[in-house]
């Protein structure tokens, strides 16, 4: 019966699905199964693109190049996926030492293992182990915080948990209404105040509402901010302090949202957000494009922050648990 319930949710959501697909002939008549399938297909297609880009250069290389040349190409492929020069050369160097006596065909497998090894250390899905469980969502501008919150709220609700959203972005125009829109889609309440208000006050209200309404999960949206802006990072710390004060032990999770398209700057983002509020999880969005998101590899190596989710689209169901093996496979 679980399946049936899910189907109803889908039908409920179909209005907004069709809006964007309007230009796509016949899309609005797509049945639910097609849509689910289309979702998976787009993920697969996305991952395949990533895969081909790299393997194109690697496989062609199996035709008689020396091992050194091949390793160089592998390093190049990693750099092209935003893994960064330093991490890429270290990973390949490490492989080099293990390669003695191995034949060329093993190379690809070897690199995949290497990367999957690095990422497995941070493959830890989010476990909601108490109620209320408070999640704060942070990141630079436009990475997908609000959308990820919508998807996550939907996921929590469909596992039977009651969700409360807090419109902590009081700065950006219509950020509150955007979150309210998600609240409507998901079917959960949104605590808000007026635009331009104090995010601390919103969070204060939300914490109290969470207790009085017995919400299982509270997800707090915050305004996008560049990690270099000291005053805005101070504001974030304050928001966190208000949460902890109102509900000792909270927030139980602080998710940093990173855009897979981001280059080396994501490392600084992760470092500075982590210093300011202690990031406990990462969500990597927009993996449905051609961006590879390789930047999480140096981040995983340096900061060891668990990677919770990946975003693979703008729809309500386009959130997946991070899977190190799949990710590595898609990358190499």
């Amino acid at each position, binding site marked *: 019966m679980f399946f049936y319930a899910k189907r109803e949710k889908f039908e409920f959501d179909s209005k907004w699905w069709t*809006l*964007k*697909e*309007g*230009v*796509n002939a016949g*899309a609005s008549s797509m049945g639910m199964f097609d849509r689910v399938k289309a979702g998976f297909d787009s993920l697969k297609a996305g991952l395949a*693109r990533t895969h081909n880009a790299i393997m194109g250069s690697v496989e062609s290389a199996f035709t008689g190049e020396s091992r050194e040349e091949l390793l160089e190409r592998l390093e*190049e492929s990693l*750099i*092209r*996926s*935003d893994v*960064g*020069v330093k991490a890429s050369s270290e990973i390949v160097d490490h492989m080099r030492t293990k390669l003695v006596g191995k034949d060329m065909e093993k190379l690809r497998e070897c690199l995949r293992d290497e990367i999957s090894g690095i990422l497995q250390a941070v493959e830890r899905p989010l476990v909601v182990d108490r109620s209320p469980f408070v999640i704060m969502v942070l990141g*630079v*501008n*436009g*990475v*997908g915080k609000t959308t990820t919150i919508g998807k996550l709220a939907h996921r929590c609700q469909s596992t039977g948990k009651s969700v409360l959203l807090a419109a902590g972005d009081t*700065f*950006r*125009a*219509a*950020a509150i*209404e*955007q979150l*309210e*829109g*998600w609240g409507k889609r998901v079917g959960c309440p949104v605590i808000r105040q007026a*635009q331009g208000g104090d995010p601390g006050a919103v969070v204060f209200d939300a914490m109290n509402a969470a207790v009085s309404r017995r919400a299982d999960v509270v997800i707090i949206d915050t305004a*996008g901010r*560049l*990690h*270099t*802006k*000291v*005053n805005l990072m101070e504001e974030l710390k304050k928001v966190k302090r208000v949460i902890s004060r109102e509900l000792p032990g909270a927030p139980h999770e602080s998710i940093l949202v990173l*855009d897979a*398209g*981001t*280059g*080396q*700057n*994501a490392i*600084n983002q992760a470092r500075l957000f982590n210093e300011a509020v202690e990031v406990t999880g990462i969500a990597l969005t*927009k993996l*449905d*494009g*051609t*961006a*590879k998101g390789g*930047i999480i590899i140096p981040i995983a190596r340096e900061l060891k922050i668990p990677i919770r989710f990946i975003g693979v689209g*703008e729809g309500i169901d386009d959130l997946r648990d991070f899977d190190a093996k799949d990710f590595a496979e898609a990358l190499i």
Partner: protein
Amino acid sequence: MLESLSEKFRKILRDVRGQGSLSESNIQEALKEVRLALLEADVNFTVVKDFVAAVKEKAMGKEVLESLSPGQQFTKIVHDELTDLLGGTDSGLELKGRPSVIMLVGLQGSGKTTTAAKLALLLKSKGRNPYIVPADLFRLAAVLQLKKLAAEVNVDCFDSENMKTPADVCREALRVAGIKGYDTLLVDTAGRLHVDSSLMQELQSLKEILKPAEILFVADSMTGQDAVNTAKGFNESVGITGVVLTKFDGDARGGAALSMRMTTGKPIKFIGTGEKVDCLEVFHPARLAGRILDMGDVLTLIEKAQATFDEKQAKELEKKIRKDAFTLEDFKDQLQQIKKLGSLESILSMVPGFSALKQAKDIKIDEKEITRVEAIINSMTRKEKQDVLCLNASRRQRIAKGSGTKVQDVNKLINQYQDMRKMMKKMKSAGPRGLRGMFPGRMR
């Protein structure tokens, strides 16, 4: 990068002087540093390769000039080449047609909607009569977002609320513009992936309706290697006329700009330097070149300083210093001048090597410091501002209370002020040359 690139070049090429000219062998190592710097700045791998080859060709056989060190000379070659490739000369908007239409396109979350409002504000200040058109009917509250921004910049906004498709919006907005006499349309579109063919097709059909003078690809300056694919994708399916580089107020080095420029051949026209509607600047290639190479952006700093610190004020101040009559009030004025330059952070980020230093030493900049100092000075009486010597303990306590600070803060400020006066005295004895260095407005 702990060392600035130019410093590295200096070391690597130290010994070239004796050899008379730059050669393949003596620049090899310096080229490696160029490659590394560009990759770290997110310039695409292929683009880096081409660039390094071009620099090599330019540099080889160059005689080492007497006036420059080999390091400086190489720095100049790299910087000039990069500046050239980034666009050579600045290019503005080309607003043909009436009304002339500017379409904003790009990936999700890149800054299209914000940029639409920023451009409207800019165009209005140039005497045009812009009209904002929200054609993103997909993302939640996207129309409302732009409506609010339009109200903020005081520009009329087309009412898209009841429209069914973006095409309807565009047709209807054109009709209204014709009646009401708007001369420039700023059309915001929904974010989309370049690989989403149906949505790219939608853009093409909007383009057919609007016949835009400009199609600006709005891109995030933090973008990584994928910038070549996205820029190419948008350019090939809709034909962009230029790029707007957003979120430039952070610490991203912005190498994606070079990637986009090289793959599309289209100019970068503007940079977004903040979330607020007035944070849009015309693009200057030389400045970005300095930033990509982490050589600082001294030019911007100098220009900004010149714009804010006017000549007359500088003269007056100089006079005061000569007479040793520099009061706390003047000190406050100075701080306000600095504040006008932008945030301390943004000023310092233009200083060569600062970003490296900041990372290495973990420097935090306290923007509140200036505000605190201002508050303290504001809480002083006229007499106190003129003559700090009268500031006894009880006065200091009162000032601290009045400004909501601690006595230690007041003490610190007074010490700083006195140090500054001492320094000024020294400068004075060093003659006019010594003074000049102190005021950015006097630099030239």
